[in-house]
């Protein structure tokens, strides 16, 4: 009895020491990544959280004011309006992106002549930065020297040059068109990898069983693409909720402040009104909303029980 304890105790200790040494080595390996996350994510996030509790002007002294910024948000109707518009934009643009990207993904999934050319062509706008794309489109949409309005006028389609950016509907849909042009290629690639990961024999078996193309799409393709869809959806929704560049550069939030997004409002509060503390508080609220939305999407698209 005594011998057993005498021999087993040091052995256990040795194992523990070995495990902990291995853990330390492991930690060493991930250290660069951890340092990266801490410096570029955790510290800025903590800083933002701290700023949101202060009255923090762009210049001059700041003072701790507790939760006052958050109480002010509750009364800030223009922020809630901006949030409402952002939600509307997110729904519309996400539907539009998927409506374009899914057919494109199906089109380019299987090898056929010129597939690589199509893939490259569809993907190309995705590598353009949002700001540069916005500048490009703000010229295309310009009523006097752009492309669309003058061309329509010259072809006799319109009686006079129509200023597309002057009223809400054409301005809003112009932005949607621009974003779809810019983003659909990226979503297409994600969806394509999902399509390609579906084993061919499943489809063939279904064909033998007499399933039509629509039934196969609904019963095989969609369920097996669950994870890919979740990824594409979360990327698209998160990107749309954070939309700013295109509304700032092309529309300046107009016509008549009808296209102010949540991030645009945060930008205005921080860098036009110079209330950095309040801007930080708005950012924290938006962060919470974004995390909640992402969790809901993950939950909705989770793997159903029993399905491998």
């Amino acid at each position, binding site marked *: 009895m005594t011998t057993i304890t005498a021999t087993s105790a040091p052995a256990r200790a040795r194992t523990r020491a070995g495990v902990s040494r291995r853990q330390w080595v492991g930690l060493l390996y991930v250290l660069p990544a951890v340092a990266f996350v801490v410096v570029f994510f955790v510290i800025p996030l903590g800083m933002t959280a701290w700023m949101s509790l202060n009255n923090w*002007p*762009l*210049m*001059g*002294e700041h003072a701790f004011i507790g939760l006052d910024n958050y109480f002010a948000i509750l009364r800030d109707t223009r922020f809630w309006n901006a949030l409402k518009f952002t939600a509307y934009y997110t729904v519309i643009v996400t539907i539009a992106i998927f409506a374009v990207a899914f057919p494109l993904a199906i089109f380019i999934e299987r090898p056929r002549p010129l597939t690589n050319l199509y893939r490259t062509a569809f993907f190309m706008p995705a590598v353009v930065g949002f700001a540069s794309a916005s500048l490009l489109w703000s010229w295309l949409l*310009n*009523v*006097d*020297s752009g492309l669309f*309005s003058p061309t329509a006028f010259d072809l006799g389609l319109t009686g*006079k*040059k*129509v*200023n597309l*950016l*002057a009223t809400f509907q054409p301005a809003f849909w112009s932005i949607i068109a621009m974003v779809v042009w810019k983003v659909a290629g990226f979503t297409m690639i994600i969806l394509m990898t999902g399509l390609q990961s579906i084993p061919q024999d499943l489809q063939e078996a279904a064909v033998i069983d007499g399933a039509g193309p629509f039934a196969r799409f609904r019963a095989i393709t969609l369920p097996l693409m669950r994870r890919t869809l979740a990824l594409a959806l979360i990327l698209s929704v998160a990107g749309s909720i954070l939309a700013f560049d295109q509304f700032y550069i092309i529309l*300046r*939030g*107009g*016509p*008549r*402040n009808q296209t*102010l997004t949540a991030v*645009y409002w945060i930008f*205005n509060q*921080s*860098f*036009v*009104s*110079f209330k950095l503390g309040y801007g930080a508080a708005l950012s924290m609220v938006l962060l919470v909303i974004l995390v909640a939305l992402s969790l809901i999407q993950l939950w909705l698209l989770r793997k159903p029980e029993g399905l491998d």
Partner: protein
Amino acid sequence: MRRNTVKTLIAKLALAAAVIGGGLQAASAETANIWVRADGSNFMPRIVDAFNKAHKDQIKLDIIPNAEIIPKYGAAAAGGTAPDALSLDLIYTPSFAAAGQLEDITDWAKSLPYFSSLSPAHVKTGTHKGRIYGLPFSADSSVLIWNKKLFKQAGLDPEKGPTNWAEIEADAEKVNALGGDIKGFYFSGNCGGCNIFTFTPLIWASGGDILSEDGSKATLDSPQLRGAIDLYRSMVKKGMVPEGAQTDTGANFFAAFAGGKIGISPSGAFAIGALNTQYPDIDYGITFLPGKDGGWSSFAGGDNFVVTKGTKKVAVVKEFLDFAYSLEGQTILAKYGSLPVRGDIAKEALKDLDPRYQVAAEAMAKGRTPYTVVFNDLINSANGPWTQMVNEVFFGDDVDGAISNAQETMQSIIDQAPQK
């Protein structure tokens, strides 16, 4: 062969050492960094070049887009990388000084022999609690410009600009009748800064105002404002204004007239220098922005020169400002688009220049500057109440609603402003 390579190598090393040594020596002259907003992009590089050529100390100039210079400066100041000095839109000087961001230059300013003849509007906004933080650098007044060639084509007297609102509309209509790409009138319909500069003088000249004298009350609901709005609306309705005006956030404020296809446009003194140097083919006239039945007014704008608190390059910055205040400096400024800011030598600085400057200089002398600590929120912000209102009242359907909405929003911004 090998020895030769070694020799060349040694020679190269020696040369490199000499270059590095020389570079170190040159570095003993100081270089100060200054910023200017894009409005100064015509005259500022010229005066900096002239200074750099004549001095051992150097100035490094950065030109920043108008809308970005304030946030960029604030961020740079917080990060300790602010420029040593900047040419700052004069309306911002009080809030910068109040934030403790600027070097107190009172003693130096008062030691200048010509201090008393520096532009009073600038010095007033550059003064905070009795201390001076900003001195005038560039000046700009708002005026009306017209295209003489188009006036002639339209059968108008090319030497006579409009002197009241009815004449503006009548002249613009005649030019507009030339047809084709030619339009009668232009203004940036979605730009708050442009319209405070060129639209409010129409109201002032008719006896109205948009803010009370101390900036504590918004006074938008006036017949003078309504009248000026009706003038613009009528011209828009008759198709005398290009479609692009409705969404112009200021990008075309000057460029539209410079294209040579606009009859009349409210603009600024800066346009004289810019047109003469960049568009010498345009034949234009300059007159005052008139009131409804005559009279005139102008916005006194421009930049104050301010020094960042704690900078080590104060000596260089002062050297540069001394140069800018010299007759040579004032002449360069005037030649490339700013009015002189030294009253005592203004006539001399302008004497060899375009006589049209005299109109602008006279406008400057009688010009007004609205005073408010929330100028950015009220007026300049692309999403602020003033910008939204001008766009709605010039192009929208509900003028009364737009005015009362703006009145309410402006007043609430003023009421919520920090009391300084």
